């Protein structure tokens, strides 16, 4: 079944690039950033649209919001449903996925549901959630959950299901009990893919959190975006958007860093 293959980055064979000083990664990355910011500034100066502020204005608005604390306050508010939702879907999702990977009956009952949900536009359920749980925190947490859950469950399920057979055989030949095999072989072998699922789930959760703030009630970053848009304070609006995008990317990087620090001692040594 194709959809059992969850969204995994395709492995890329490393290629020995001929490295020239001018091709140094950081130099090129810096150059690329500079070019994009310059293009932003130029497009804002033209301006390509009255609703397109320059980079300088956006940066100034960002600094101002940072100084008066409104940006951090908004982030904090956005973070709450996100953190609760991700925690719930992370714990519950991994548990469901692992259970499905270990037990055929659970798989038979659960997998089809999550396979369907993974390809489904779950955002369509948000109006229903609002209707059922009002415009408060619960609806937002649930939005994050429904967006993040399927990919977390399916990754955990696939990871457990595809434990290398030779490792399992080895464990059995040394008389490991079922419990020992799960704890010492299945879960550690599955952990990279489970964590990949958590990262994808976190990205989906961010999409859900922002969507909830834009659709249900404007709070946090969503509030800054909607409010500054309504008073045509475009620099503030752009600054808030850039902040939340950067924040989510950093958050996902942090997850990866934590994974390697805590769970994969072998990844810490250079390959």
């Amino acid at each position, binding site marked *: *079944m*194709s*959809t059992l*293959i969850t*969204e995994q*980055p*395709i492995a*890329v*064979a490393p*290629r020995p*690039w001929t490295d020239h000083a001018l*091709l140094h*990664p950081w130099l*090129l*990355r810096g*150059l*690329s*950033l500079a*070019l994009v910011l310059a293009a932003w500034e130029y497009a804002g100066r033209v301006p390509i*649209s009255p609703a*397109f502020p320059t980079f300088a204005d956006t940066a100034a608005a960002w600094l101002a919001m940072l100084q008066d604390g409104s940006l951090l306050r908004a982030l904090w508010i956005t973070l709450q449903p996100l953190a609760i939702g991700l925690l719930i879907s992370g714990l519950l999702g991994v548990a469901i996925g692992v259970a499905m990977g270990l037990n*055929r*009956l659970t798989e*038979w*009952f659960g*997998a*089809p*549901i999550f396979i369907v*949900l*993974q*390809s*489904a*536009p779950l*955002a*369509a*359920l*948000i*109006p*229903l959630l609002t*209707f*059922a749980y009002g415009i408060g925190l619960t609806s937002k947490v649930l939005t994050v959950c429904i967006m993040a859950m399927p990919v977390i469950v399916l990754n955990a399920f696939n990871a457990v299901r595809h434990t290398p057979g030779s490792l399992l055989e080895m464990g059995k030949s040394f008389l490991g009990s079922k419990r020992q095999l799960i704890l010492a072989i299945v879960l550690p072998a599955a952990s990279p893919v489970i964590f990949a699922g958590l990262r994808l789930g976190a*990205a989906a959760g*961010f*999409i859900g*959190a*922002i*969507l909830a703030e*834009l*659709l249900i009630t404007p709070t946090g*970053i969503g509030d800054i*975006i*909607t409010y500054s*848009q309504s008073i045509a304070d*475009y620099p503030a*609006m*752009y600054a808030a*958007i850039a902040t939340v*995008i950067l924040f*989510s*990317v950093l958050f996902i990087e942090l997850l990866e860093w934590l994974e390697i620090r805590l769970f994969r001692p072998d990844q810490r040594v250079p390959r």
Partner: protein
Amino acid sequence: MQIGRFRVPMMASLLIWALLWEIVGRLGLTILLPPLSAIAGRMAEIVPTPTFLAAAWITLQAFLAGNLIAIALGVPLGVLMGRSVIADRMLLPWVNLFLSAPLTALVPVIMILFGYGQTTIILTVVMFALWIIVLDARAGVRNIAPSLIEMARVYGATPLQAFLKIHLLAALPEILAGIRLGAIRAVKGVIIGQLLVSIVGFGRLFELYSSNFLMEHFWALILVLFAVAFALAEGLGYLERRVEYYAAARH
């Protein structure tokens, strides 16, 4: 699952869930969940209506247009990144950034720049689909055996010929994987775009049904959408496996 010697097909468990839904609906525990049979009846009723067909048509247009743009931009970009170190180092951070960024935050920007209409929705679809297409095309090109590219050079292929006859074909399995994942993301993008713009296509219908508490209508619409999205993902997955079959000969 196995019962004795008989293999029960996996998707059959959906029938049990449907039955549970029906029971919960019949018990009337919550008005949120009408019985499935009532929803199915409503489905048969609303699907042929002109409103529904018009919404479906405009959604399909946005979906297809957005996907085509994303493919037309994404594949050449990915191939370029796979071939050129400079392009790769300059573009990869941005592609990775947008791949995991909460793109919903960018929809308001698209809205103020391009208005509350179909253009915004198409651009939202592009935003959702593009990045994974770029990344997979790049992976595909980088996985091409170097000898194949040297062969093209030896026989004097022009850059255009090399792009069309070597890179595109040799990287086809990965490119198709990217297009499939892009299309799945695009389905989500088109619905999110319509929800946020809320006056176009299904977005308007969702608004209409939920504000009037028409739960049967609402669920009918959801189930149709989910079924179409699932069929699309499975269909593309099937096509991809056919291509992988041919691609297995590459190695």
